[in-house]
């Protein structure tokens, strides 16, 4: 007896089961049959010998046949009672001219609807993948659009920075010009003050000279005063002498009196001159004092120096401010340039979506192929009369996936396919792509540019 559709281990288990069951049933039937033989042997022999005139040999033959029939019938009866068939419950697995009919029924009743039900579920998966593609495409498109908006802002910023930078350079130049102008102004003021100092000194000196010269007139006035005093004294003496001379001296007395009057007038004039000299001296001194009081040269110089220092500080501060502004603008400008580079690289990285889309399309293609294969198997089951007569004409799934392999559009897909086959033991190392991808290749025979 042989078994079909079983693996070696299952086959051995079935054999053991069959042996155990057949022995149990044989014992269960053999014991009662033996007892029956012992009990009815005498009656059976007498019956056949007396009624049918059988000899001992014929009686033994008939008895043996009866025992075998009884034993076999008992076996089948017990097997049917305990194991639901006449062959110890392994009838389905015993090679039989029509063995697959029950299996076919099971396949058509259970497996076929299951295989057919794959279609809508396959469609769910495919729709999900289409949805993923659509979503990623929309997202990538939106990202690209937003990147363009960001770029527009960056361009605005760059333009602003350029304008501000030019303005800042202009301001710095203007500031430098103002500082220079201030320096020139301060120099002018310094020379003006120096001139004023010099003039003031000269004024003081000429005033002193004038005072001195005026004072020197006083000695002359004194001399005239003494001469006038002597003249007056002489005139008095002459008048006395004229009086002594009598009438002879009367004319002389008139002269002496006139001389005395002259000397008195001279003295009065000298006094006026003296007063005038004093007044002129005081006037010059007063004017000189006023001029000195008005000048405040040192204060002016100090103020001017302070003012100059302040202007210098202001100019430096302004220059530092302009430099700082320039540095900030340069930093913004370089950051903006880096942003522009990053923007371009990010734009380039959006290519991932196209790659993902194509990979998903190939996965969908693979699912379609599996589905098509499954439906082919279902068709075979549906139209099969029985296993023995079935001669399945079906393309192996491997062929479908080899065909899918040939439609791949990138080495990544081929590598994943080959690695998966390697893992499942269906090595396809011959299908591995070249190890290193040459990303950019310019063909040597470039078409010539038309003149």
């Amino acid at each position: 007896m042989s078994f079909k559709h079983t693996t070696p281990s299952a086959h051995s288990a079935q054999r053991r089961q069959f042996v155990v069951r057949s022995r149990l049933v044989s014992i269960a039937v053999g014991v009662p049959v033996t007892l029956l033989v012992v009990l009815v042997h005498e009656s059976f022999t007498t019956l056949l010998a007396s009624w049918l005139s059988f000899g001992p040999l014929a009686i033994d033959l008939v008895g043996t046949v009866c025992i075998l029939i009884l034993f076999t019938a008992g076996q089948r009866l017990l097997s049917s009672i305990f194991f639901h068939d006449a062959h110890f419950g392994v009838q389905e697995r015993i090679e039989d001219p029509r063995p697959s009919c029950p299996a076919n029924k099971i396949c058509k009743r259970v497996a076929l609807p299951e295989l057919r039900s794959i279609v809508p579920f396959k469609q769910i998966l495919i729709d999900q993948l289409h949805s993923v593609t659509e979503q990623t495409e929309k997202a990538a498109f939106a990202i690209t659009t937003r990147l363009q908006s960001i770029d527009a802002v960056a361009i605005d910023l760059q333009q602003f920075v350029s304008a501000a930078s030019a303005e800042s350079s202009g301001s710095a130049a203007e500031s430098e010009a103002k500082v220079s102008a201030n320096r020139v102004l301060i120099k002018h003021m310094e020379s003006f003050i120096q001139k004023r100092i010099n003039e003031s000194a000269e004024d003081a000196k000429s005033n002193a000279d004038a005072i001195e010269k005026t004072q020197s007139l006083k000695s002359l006035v004194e001399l005239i005063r003494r001469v006038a005093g002597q003249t007056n004294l002489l005139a008095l003496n002459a008048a006395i002498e004229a009086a002594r001379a009598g009438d002879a001296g009367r004319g002389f007395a008139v002269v002496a009196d006139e001389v005395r009057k002259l000397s008195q007038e001279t003295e009065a004039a000298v006094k006026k001159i003296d007063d005038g000299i004093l007044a002129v001296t005081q006037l010059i001194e007063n004017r000189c004092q006023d001029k000195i009081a008005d000048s405040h040269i040192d204060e002016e110089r100090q103020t001017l120096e302070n003012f100059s220092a302040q202007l210098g500080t202001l100019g430096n501060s302004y220059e530092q401010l302009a430099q700082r502004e320039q540095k900030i603008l340069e930093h913004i400008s370089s950051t903006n340039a880096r942003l522009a580079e990053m923007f371009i690289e990010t734009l380039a990285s959006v290519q991932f979506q196209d790659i993902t889309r194509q990979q998903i399309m190939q996965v969908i293609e693979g699912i379609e192929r599996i589905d098509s294969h499954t439906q082919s198997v279902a068709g075979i089951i549906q139209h099969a009369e029985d296993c023995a007569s079935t001669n399945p004409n079906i393309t192996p799934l491997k062929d479908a996936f080899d065909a899918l392999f040939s439609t791949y559009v990138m080495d990544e897909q081929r590598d994943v396919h080959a690695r998966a086959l390697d893992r499942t033991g269906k090595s396809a190392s011959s299908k591995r792509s070249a190890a290193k991808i040459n990303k950019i290749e310019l063909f040597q025979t470039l078409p010539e540019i038309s003149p």
Partner: protein
Amino acid sequence: MSTIMLVDDSATILLSISSILGKAGYTVEKAANAEIALGKFNAGVKINLLITDLNMPGMNGIELIKEVRKLPAYKFVPILFLTTESQQARKMEAKAAGASGWIVKPATADELLNTIKLVIK
């Protein structure tokens, strides 16, 4: 500045690559498939370079450039492929059809722009 025709069935690729080219100063003519591109060629659009995808619905990139090379005005225009495919056999097929070079996606902006500079004279 030079004008570049970009042919790709992916709207995202068209937008992103044309932005990169635009920022680099190129004028870009876009076509969402080979048929649209051929329509523009037949209308006499003037270009300095054609960049095309390989796998597209309808006419593929190699079929497109075979048609382009038949047009006298575009017999000598440089043609670059920008595609996910990297099989040598396909490259050779493209080369035989008149392609000037091949760039595998994803390419960085530098890779793309440097290659363009090499093929545009």
